């Protein structure tokens, strides 16, 4: 019997038994501990098997696109932190790069190197977090503790750089605000030297673990066609047989100067995605070693500039602002009124740890973007659950949500 709702009696929508067939509708979330955020899945079940899945999102919607339309460009930067809050520098970077492309700015080399370091540290942080939480969902507590321990070292390094552990705002439009601290490279090198052994520890715990293999292998298979059709990107795409990494194919920053491989697989199941995350951490470590050398070269060549020189858009250095009248005036205008990028539009995609993070900006020459669209990879990686889950069993839902690596800060924006 269907429930009759009024405004005083609550509507129990968790389970309904009002159908003639055996189908059970089960609400998975939005407070399910393994839903990795505010995901609500309405699952139609035949016994334990899912026949229809309906992901419901929006529980973390903050209207970031609307906020962006009513903010000056620099004001929006801390908001981007709150998208993919596991790797917030990559969001900062995506937005900064989009505005720089719109203006046509060239960022100084030293800032580029620092940005690349931050991006790759964020990638390792994000992948460690993914590994920890997914392993915890499957029941591997040790991996969770190990991976969080390593992530903590990286968070300490980032904290030393920008003062924040989660919401970095460490990248500005036009460069980076600060040079890295003295201990940065030493700490990073200590961490990187230890990382291969750490990754091997995780793999020793998981690769031949019977439970892990049963939950991962041949579960959550995404075909190449489906992954392309659903707009998948990042590890979700690469695990399904497309070797596409934006860092490699459409290089931004100095990614064309560093050597790294793009791991991919044609298996398309959970285990393939797990392997890709592990390999990507190794590749990121490789990139970080190279950026450390590049930073050394910058120091040697006395390339000290950290922000682009464009008085119409970017404030001058602190020293100039404090000593030169015109720089102070420019700074005052840029802070109170905001920069006014040229009329036009731009779509810039960067490879965030989760996939293709895109910023579409339509500027009408004003200090606020006329339209800003955030293209967050997790949005489609949640949508694909509609087609992916039917046929699977309830325990598989947990491992599939785990390997899709969705973060609801960027799904709901």
């Amino acid at each position, binding site marked *: 019997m269907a429930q009759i709702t009024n405004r005083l009696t609550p509507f129990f929508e968790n389970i309904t038994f009002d159908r003639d067939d055996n189908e059970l509708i089960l609400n998975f979330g939005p407070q399910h501990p393994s839903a990795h955020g505010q995901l609500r899945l309405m699952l139609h079940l035949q016994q334990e098997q899912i026949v229809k899945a309906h992901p419901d999102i929006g529980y973390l919607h903050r209207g970031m696109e609307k906020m962006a339309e009513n903010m000056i460009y620099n004001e929006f930067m801390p908001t981007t932190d709150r998208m993919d809050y596991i790797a917030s520098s990559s969001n900062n970077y995506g937005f900064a790069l989009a505005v720089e492309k719109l203006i046509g700015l060239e960022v100084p080399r030293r800032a580029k190197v620092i940005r690349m370091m931050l991006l790759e540290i964020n990638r390792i942080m994000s992948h460690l977090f993914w590994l920890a939480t997914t392993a915890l969902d499957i029941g591997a507590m040790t991996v969770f503790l190990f991976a969080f321990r390593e992530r903590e070292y990286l968070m300490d390094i980032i904290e030393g750089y920008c003062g924040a552990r989660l919401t970095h705002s460490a990248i500005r439009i036009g460069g980076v605000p600060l040079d890295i601290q003295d201990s940065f490279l030493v700490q990073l090198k200590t961490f990187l030297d230890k990382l291969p052994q750490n990754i091997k520890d995780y793999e020793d715990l998981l690769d031949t673990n019977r439970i892990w293999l049963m939950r991962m292998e041949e579960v959550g298979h995404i075909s190449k066609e489906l992954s392309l059709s659903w707009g998948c990107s990042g590890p979700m795409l690469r695990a399904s047989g497309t070797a596409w990494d934006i860092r490699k194919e459409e290089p931004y920053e100095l990614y064309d100067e560093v050597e790294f491989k793009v791991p991919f697989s044609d298996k398309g199941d959970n285990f393939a995605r797990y392997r890709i995350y592990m390999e990507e951490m190794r590749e990121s470590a490789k990139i970080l070693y190279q950026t450390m050398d590049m930073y050394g070269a910058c120091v040697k060549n006395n390339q000290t500039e950290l922000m682009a020189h464009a008085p119409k858009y970017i404030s001058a250095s602190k020293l100039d602002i404090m000593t030169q009248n015109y720089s102070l005036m420019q700074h005052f205008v840029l802070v109170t009124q905001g920069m006014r990028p040229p009329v*036009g539009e731009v779509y810039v995609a960067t490879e965030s740890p989760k996939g293709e993070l895109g910023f579409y900006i339509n500027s009408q020459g004003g200090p606020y973007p006329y339209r800003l669209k955030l293209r967050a990879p997790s949005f489609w990686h949640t949508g694909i659950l509609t087609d992916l889950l039917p046929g699977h069993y309830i325990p598989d839902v947990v491992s599939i949500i785990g390997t899709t690596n969705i973060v609801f800060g960027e799904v709901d924006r």
Partner: protein
Amino acid sequence: MRAYTPKDDVQAKPYYTDRFYVSPQVPKEAVENDAVFAADLAAIKAKFEVSDAYIQVGQMVVYIHAKDNYGVLELLRDELEYTQLTEMSAIDWLAKENKFEIFYQMLSMNKRKRVRIKMFIENGQAVNSVNELFRSADWSEREMFDMFGIEANGHPFMKRILLPYDWQGHPLLKTYPLEGDEFAAWYEVDKIYGKEARDIIGPELRDPAKVDRYDSDRFARLGHEVPKGTVITGHEPKIEQSYQEEGGVFMIKKFDKKSSVVIDDPQR
């Protein structure tokens, strides 16, 4: 008489713009400058009407007629190797020309090229759904409907996606107010408790960060609490804090803070 404020664009406006300020333009290149784009454009032009096309920041922008969107995207996917629809959404031009602009952001991995297909629709007009070509459009079109109220014909589940189903209005329209009015302050109270509870509950505080610095009884006056409504002189006596419940605490027989000893030195 009140000053007239236009209601078709209520978004934040720059408070100062120089009278003689002329915005620069992001440069546009001709499509012929890029051989790959030129071939793609020729293929589109052979079958469909193209009103404008150019390259901006490395990506080709093609303006098509709204009725052709399914056909153009099908052509791009099947013949021109644009295998992914990475993004699609709309732009609100209602205040200027009563139109929406819709864009489809396409990606070709084989060619390493991105193309933006754009079209204009009238206010109230629906678009053809491209869900059957690209599953990613399923959620994108729902989001577009949620944010702009633009419906997609042939979509299997045209409902809101991010906002609740009973939400009024479409937030990314330029006519959407940035903050609530006096009706908004009562909306949730009326809906949940009924109008008759207005006196008991009071209006909703729309800006939770707002602090009235003259309203001193809202502040936590730790150790100096007074009953609500008391006139505060600033000379209230300090009240000894004691969180022990009236009838004693479960399992704890006798606890009196005054007679208990606090050990300051853990190494004693």
